[in-house]
C-alpha cells in the first residue's frame, strides 16, 4: 500500500495540481467554445470558407501536440498560455465541425418558413438555428472537453502545471506511484467533465426532441434533477477558480527561477528558489521542471524566466554551436562572454559539480565483457544495442562524436527519452545507455559507469545563468549563488538525486533538507 502512502504524503500537491488542471481545462474549453462556435456559424453562412477552415482544423489535429507546443514557444513563451493555446487548437475541430453540421442540418424549408413569417437573420440564428443545433454543438464540445483533459497533461512540459507534472516527473524518475497519482485524477476528471457536458447536452436539447422514448412528464422530471446536478458542478468549478485566484502584489520584488525537466534540475531549481527566498526579501516564482534545454533557454531569452542552472557543455556546444573541447577554462570564458554579448545573460561562477555524460551498462554486462572504460566497449559494440536519449543522439558532443572518437559501432540505436531507457536496459532491450554522472538512477539500478578514458565528453560544470537586467536589480543573488555552488559537489548532488530517484522523496523536501543541514537557511 505504498501507493496510498504516497497519496497521503503528497495529497496537498496532488489536490492543488488537480485544481489547477480543472482550471486550465475549463479555460481552454471555454475559450475554444467562444472561438469555435462563431467560426462554425460563420462557415455555415459563408460556404466558400467551409472547406479551407475545416481542412485547416483537421491539419492542426494531425500535428503532434508536442510539435505544436514546441512551435508555439518562440511566439508565446512558456507556461500556461501556450498550453492553453494548444489545447484550444486541438479542441476546435469537433466544435467547429458540429456547429457547422448542425446549422447546415436544419432544413431550408424551416429557414424559409422563419423568413416568411418575418424573422430577421439574427432572429433566425438565435431563435431557430442555434436552439435546434445546440445538442449537436454540445456533443462536439463534450468530445473536445474530454480530450482536453488528457491533452492538458502536456502543459507540464512547459511549466504550465496541472496533473501532467506528476505524470511526467513520474515517468522521468520511474516512479509509478507518482504516474498513477497524476493519471488517476486525470481519468476521474475526464469522467466528471464527460458527465458535466453530458448534462448540459441533455438540458439544451429541446424537450420535444427528448420525448421520443419517454413521456413528457418523465423528461421534465429528469430535467429537474439534471439542473440540480449542473448547479452543483458549476458551484464546485466556481470554487476552484476562486481558490486559485492569488492576490497578486504587482510591486513585490519577484524573480522567476526555473529548471529543466529532470530530477537534478528539479532539486537545483527548488533549492535555488528556497535559498534566495530565505536570504533576501525577493519573492521567488518557481517554474521548475520546465522542459528540455532548448525550451528553458528560449524561455530565459524571452524573459519568461530569470534564473536557472545550466551546464557549461550544453551552453558551449548546443547553444553556441562550438565543437566540444575538454579545456574547462576556455569553455567557461567563452560561454560567459558570448552569453553576455549575444543574449544579454550573465553566467555566474561555476559550481563544484560536473554533470557530464557517461555510458552505463548493467553490472552483469560489465563483468561478462570485463568493461571498465569506454575503450573496453569497442570490440563488443557491434553486438550491443544502445538506447540513448533523443538529445544524446542529436548532439555534437553526443553519440555521433563519441562513436567517431572511440570507433564505436552499435548494433542498433533505439532512442528513448527520459527514464524509460533505464527500464529498457533492465529488461535487456538494450545493453548500453547514456547517463549523467550525477544521476541517482545509476545507484538505484546498480549500474556500472564506464570511464571516459579518451576525455571525449566536454566539461559539464553547472553554472547559474541569470538575465543581466535581473542581476543589476538584485546583485545580491550573485554572492548567494557563489556560496551555494561550493556545497554542490558531484557526491552531494548524486546523493540528492539518489534520494529523489530511489527513495521517492520530493525534490522540494530534499532540496529544503539539504539547505537546512548545511545551515544555508
Amino acid at each position: 500500500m505504498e501507493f496510498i502512502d504516497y497519496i497521503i504524503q503528497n495529497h496537498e500537491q496532488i489536490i492543488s495540481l488537480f485544481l489547477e488542471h480543472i482550471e486550465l481545462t475549463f479555460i481552454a474549453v471555454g475559450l475554444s467554445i467562444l472561438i469555435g462556435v462563431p467560426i462554425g456559424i460563420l462557415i455555415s453562412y459563408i460556404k466558400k470558407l467551409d472547406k479551407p477552415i475545416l481542412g485547416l482544423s483537421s491539419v492542426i489535429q494531425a500535428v503532434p501536440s508536442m510539435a505544436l507546443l514546441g512551435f508555439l514557444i518562440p511566439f508565446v513563451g512558456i507556461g500556461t498560455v501556450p498550453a492553453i493555446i494548444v489545447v484550444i487548437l486541438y479542441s476546435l475541430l469537433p466544435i467547429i465541425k458540429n456547429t457547422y453540421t448542425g446549422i447546415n442540418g436544419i432544413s431550408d424549408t424551416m429557414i424559409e418558413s422563419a423568413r416568411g413569417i418575418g424573422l430577421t437573420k439574427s432572429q433566425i440564428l438565435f431563435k431557430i438555428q442555434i436552439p435546434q443545433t445546440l445538442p449537436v454543438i454540445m456533443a462536439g464540445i463534450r468530445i473536445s472537453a474530454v480530450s482536453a483533459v488528457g491533452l492538458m497533461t502536456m502543459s507540464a512540459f512547459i511549466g504550465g502545471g496541472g496533473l501532467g507534472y506528476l505524470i511526467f516527473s513520474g515517468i522521468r524518475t520511474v516512479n509509478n506511484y507518482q504516474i498513477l497519482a497524476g493519471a488517476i485524477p486525470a481519468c476521474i476528471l475526464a469522467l466528471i467533465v464527460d458527465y458535466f457536458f453530458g448534462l448540459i447536452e441533455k438540458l439544451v436539447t429541446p424537450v420535444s426532441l427528448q420525448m421520443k422514448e419517454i413521456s413528457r412528464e418523465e423528461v421534465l422530471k429528469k430535467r429537474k434533477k439534471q439542473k440540480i446536478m449542473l448547479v452543483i458542478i458549476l458551484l464546485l468549478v466556481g470554487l476552484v477558480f476562486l481558490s486559485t485566484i492569488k492576490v497578486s502584489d504587482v510591486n513585490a520584488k519577484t524573480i522567476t527561477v526555473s529548471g529543466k525537466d529532470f530530477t537534478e534540475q528539479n532539486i537545483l531549481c527548488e533549492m535555488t528558489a528556497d535559498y534566495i527566498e530565505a536570504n533576501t526579501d525577493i519573492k521567488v516564482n518557481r517554474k521548475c521542471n520546465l522542459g528540455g534545454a532548448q525550451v528553458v533557454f528560449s524561455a530565459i531569452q524571452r524573459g519568461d524566466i530569470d534564473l536557472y542552472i545550466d551546464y557549461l557543455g550544453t551552453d558551449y556546444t548546443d547553444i553556441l554551436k562550438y565543437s566540444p573541447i575538454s579545456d574547462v577554462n576556455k569553455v567557461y570564458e567563452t560561454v560567459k562572454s558570448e552569453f553576455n554579448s549575444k543574449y544579454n545573460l550573465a553566467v555566474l561562477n561555476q559550481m563544484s559539480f560536473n554533470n557530464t555524460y557517461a555510458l552505463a551498462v548493467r553490472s552483469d554486462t560489465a563483468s561478462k565483457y570485463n568493461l571498465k572504460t569506454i575503450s573496453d566497449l569497442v570490440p563488443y559494440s557491434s553486438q550491443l544495442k544502445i538506447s540513448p536519449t533523443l538529445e544524446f543522439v542529436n548532439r555534437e558532443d553526443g553519440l555521433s562524436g563519441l562513436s567517431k572518437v572511440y570507433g564505436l559501432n552499435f548494433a542498433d540505436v533505439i532512442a528513448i527519452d527520459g527514464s524509460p531507457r533505464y527500464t529498457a536496459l533492465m529488461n535487456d532491450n538494450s545493453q548500453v545507455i547514456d547517463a549523467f554522472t550525477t544521476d541517482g538512477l545509476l545507484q538505484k539500478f546498480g549500474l556500472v559507469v564506464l570511464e571516459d578514458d579518451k576525455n571525449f565528453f566536454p566539461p559539464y560544470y553547472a553554472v547559474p545563468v541569470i538575465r543581466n537586467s535581473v542581476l543589476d536589480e538584485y546583485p545580491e543573488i550573485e554572492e548567494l549563488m557563489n556560496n551555494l555552488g561550493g556545497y554542490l559537489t558531484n557526491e552531494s548532488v548524486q546523493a540528492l538525486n539518489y534520494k529523489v530517484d530511489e527513495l521517492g522523496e520530493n525534490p522540494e523536501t530534499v532540496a529544503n533538507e539539504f539547505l537546512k543541514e548545511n545551515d544555508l537557511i
Partner: protein
Amino acid sequence: MIEFKKVSKAYKNNLVLKDISFQIETGKFTVLIGESGCGKTTLLKMINKLITPTKGDIFIDGKDLKTLDEIKLRRGMGYVIQQTGLFPHLTVRENITIIPKILKISEKQIESDTLKMMDMIGLDESLLDRYPNELSGGQGQRIGIARAFITNPDIILMDEPFSALDPMSRVALQDELLKLQNRLHKTIVFVTHDMDEAIKLADKIAIFDNGELVQYDVPENILKHPANDFVKTFVGKKRIWTSPKYIKVSDIMIDKPVTCFPNYTVFYCLNKMKMMKVDSLMVIDENKKFLGVLYAESLPDKSSLKKEASEYMLKDIPTVKKEDSIVELAKLVTESRLSNIPVLDDDNNLCGLITRSSLIMALSQQFLEEEE
C-alpha cells in the same frame, strides 16, 4: 389589391415565370394552381419577397414592393406552409406568439389573442404547452393557421398547406378555412395542385402552365370554358361533376321549346304536337312571356277542337330560372314528379325547357365521357 406587372423570373437560363400580369383582389380567396414546376409557388413567394422577380414589378395597394421593407412586409402578412412550418423546439404557444413577442405586444394582449386564435381554429387551450411533434397533422396545420392570423394581417399566403394531410383532415380544414374567410374576408393567396381544393375554396383561380398564366377566372368559367387544351386536361372533363353547383339549367335545357299562343285553337295545337312529336306546348304571348303549359292528355274530347288553348292550359306549374343549378333542378323534378319544366329568365320570359330526358341525357354525360 396585389398587382403583378409583367413579372418574370429566371434562374440562370431557366425561365420559370414568363411575363405574368394579373391582379389579386382584396378580400378575395385566390388560388394559384398548376403542375409542379409551373411557377405558382415562385409567384407566391414573390409576394412576401422571399423571391425577387428578375423583371417586372409587383404592387400591393399601389405601393411598389421594391420600396417596402421585407421584414415589416412579412410581419404584416400571414404565411402558412406544409407541416415543417412549425418550429419543433418551441411549444405551440411559443410558435403562435413568436412574431407578436418580437413586435413587443403586451403579454396580456398576446395571451388573449392566443386564446382567441385557439378558439377560432377549434383547438383546446391545453394544447398550448405541447410541442409540434405531439400534435396530429391536422392540429399542426391549424396551429400554422393560428400563427398566420394572430397578427390580424390583411394578406395571408398559403403554400400547399393541406397537401400533406389525410383526406379527412384536409376536408375538415378546408371547410374551416372557408368559414373563417366568410367571416374575416382576408386577401388569401393559396397555392395548390389539387383542382378539387381550388374549386372548393377559390373566389378566383389562376392556372399556370410552364411559367405562364393560362387562365385567371372564377371557378365556374374555368370549368365550363377552359382557355386551352392544357386547362381542359388539367381541369379534367369530369371535374364539373364534382361541383354540380356550377352546372346551370341553361347548360342542359332545350333552347327552343315548342310553343303556341293562347288564342290558338285546340285543333291547331294538337296538330302541332303531332308534327313536332311532343306531348305538350308552352303557351307564351307575343313578348315570349310565359303563360302556361298545354298538355295533350288534359284536353277534352273532340267537341272542343275549336276552343282556344288558353282555356285548357295549366297555369300554376313549377318553373325554374335559367341560372338555377342542376342540383336545384333535380330536387324540383323529384318533388314535383313533372316531366316538363319550363325555364324562365328574370322577366318571366320563356327561354327553354327541361324535360326528363334532357336531364337524364345531361346526367349520363359524365359516364359517356369517361368511355371516350
